[in-house]
């Protein structure tokens, strides 16, 4: 750091006070820097810290957002633990996460491998695959709503052409979860393919050269070399999909409404939170649900991290460069 020294003789004559003005000036010296970072911290204090603390207080109240609050202690949390809808929403969220993440990862890997082999139009293909990721979920939920429609949807029409019975995409509990998963797969496969492709391109070529010389076939090379080397990138992808998977809301809400459709099969955690807080105006219980979701997300993240970290320890760090 370049220190700006106080000009000699600038300190006032009275000795005891000499120290104070100098340190005060030092503090003021960094005022522009503090001002420069202040907006974020101010906004976070007002719209982040205060609301989070206040939501803990709210979770102990019964409140419709308008009338007086009534302190109910841990009543909301006690109810939450026995609330079947909350548990179902956790189950639905996890089921949809698995149903979407597994095919998405496989497809993304295949696309990345394809793009990584020397094909033309790589740039155009990349943009085409990535486009869903930046397109409005509300808009595309409406489009998918018509694609999935039982009577006039094109998907059932195509299935009919292939001699397959119509599926009640927006009526049958498992078809509903499948429909939401398809939308998530559509949205995130390209994103992950781009990331896997970057990972593939960063791999050292000499390992593959050695494998080829040793007579390894393409399948063997993929499972023995490519996949283990790609591990850190795969971990990143799984962690990211877990974070966004726990937040699924828009697809369900637009496609099926605030209650998640027939039997609540599409009721996710965040949809249940939204419905309770902002459709039913139950702010106190809504706050308790939000804390419930927070606990689930933390537990799930820890579990996730444990599972993907365990095998092949040590390899991760080495291959990351």
């Amino acid at each position: 750091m370049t220190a700006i020294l106080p000009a000699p003789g600038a300190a006032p004559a009275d000795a005891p006070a000499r120290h104070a003005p100098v340190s005060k000036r030092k503090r003021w010296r960094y005022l522009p820097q503090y001002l420069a970072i202040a907006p974020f911290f101010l906004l976070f204090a007002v719209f982040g810290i205060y609301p989070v603390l206040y939501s803990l207080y709210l979770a102990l109240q019964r409140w419709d957002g308008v009338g007086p609050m009534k302190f109910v202690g841990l009543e909301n949390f006690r109810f939450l633990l026995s609330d079947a809808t909350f548990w179902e929403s956790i189950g639905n969220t996890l089921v949809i996460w698995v149903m979407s993440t597994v095919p998405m990862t496989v497809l993304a890997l295949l696309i990345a491998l394809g793009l990584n082999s020397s094909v033309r139009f790589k740039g155009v293909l990349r943009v085409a695959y990535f486009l869903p990721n930046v397109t409005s979920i509300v808009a595309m939920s409406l489009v998918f709503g018509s694609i999935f429609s039982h009577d006039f949807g094109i998907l059932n029409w195509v299935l009919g052409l292939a001699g397959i019975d119509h599926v009640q995409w927006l009526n049958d509990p498992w078809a509903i979860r499948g429909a939401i998963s398809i939308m998530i797969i559509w949205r995130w496969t390209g994103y992950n393919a781009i990331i896997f492709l970057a990972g593939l391109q960063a791999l050292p070529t000499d390992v593959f050269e050695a494998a080829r010389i040793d007579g390894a076939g393409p399948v063997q090379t993929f499972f023995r070399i490519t996949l283990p080397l790609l591990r850190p990138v795969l971990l990143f992808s799984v962690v990211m999909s877990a974070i966004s998977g726990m937040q699924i809301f828009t697809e369900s809400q637009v496609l099926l409404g605030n209650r998640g459709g027939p039997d609540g099969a599409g009721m996710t955690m965040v949809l249940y939170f939204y419905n309770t807080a902002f459709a039913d105006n139950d702010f106190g219980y809504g706050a308790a649900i939000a804390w419930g979701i927070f606990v689930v997300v933390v537990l799930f993240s820890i579990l996730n991290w444990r599972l993907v970290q365990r095998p092949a320890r040590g390899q991760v760090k080495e291959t990351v460069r």
Partner: protein
Amino acid sequence: MTTTRGRVVTYVALIVGALLTLFPYYWLAVMASNTTADIYATPPRLTFGGHLFANIGQVFAKIDFFGSLLNTLIVAVVTTLLVLFFDSLAAFTFAKYDFPGSSVLFGILLATFVVPTQLAAIPQFDLMAHFGWVGDLKALIIPAAANAFGIFWMRQYARGAIPDELLEAARMDGAGFFRTYLSVGLPVLRPALAFLGIFTFVNAWNDYLWPLVVLIDSNHVTLQVALSQLNGLYVKDYSVVMAGTLVAIVPLVIVFLFGARHFIRNIAAGALKG
């Protein structure tokens, strides 16, 4: 893999995959340009019809679609400009200056990543009610004016991209902190600003949950909220809903296509570093 047959298979698979990915866009355009009767027909019409402009006209006539388009544009543009300014200023500061408490403050900034949005949502709504911002676009713009992700991401970029000698030279020329940010920091950060700008614009344009909560009962809704209302109101007039949907995504697709390659490269690079 390197055989001709393998290459053809790869090509065909990639192109089929891309066509499947793009199919919903095609289907949206087909539905938006046909009548509702065509959409409901069996077998469905698979090609573009001639009713696109009539359908779009209906959307604008039936609801204040122009108003929500304008609202969304205002929110996305203003949020993006504020984020670019506040985030780059803070990122420049954290990257290049060492002041008392700087590393602790940056640590706090990183810790804010773990705060889930739902936890804050109800009190935020209550706060907006106290400020008188319910139904006001300020409720969308102000809380989003600076964010930890942008500052963190841009700081990583600024550390490597802005040479200390340039800062030293600016100081010798008598430039103050803010002047240095404007004349040295900003020009160097331009590629990072382009990425963060598109990223922020896209997110602001597509945001749904929070606008739904704070704008729902007002005349000032954004496109996403208008779309979901349109769907509820005119569910029988499918082609009109689809025309609205098409109008809602086209501007964003254009913005994205402008910076797509640069944007995608940054997404990939960010993931590898993370």
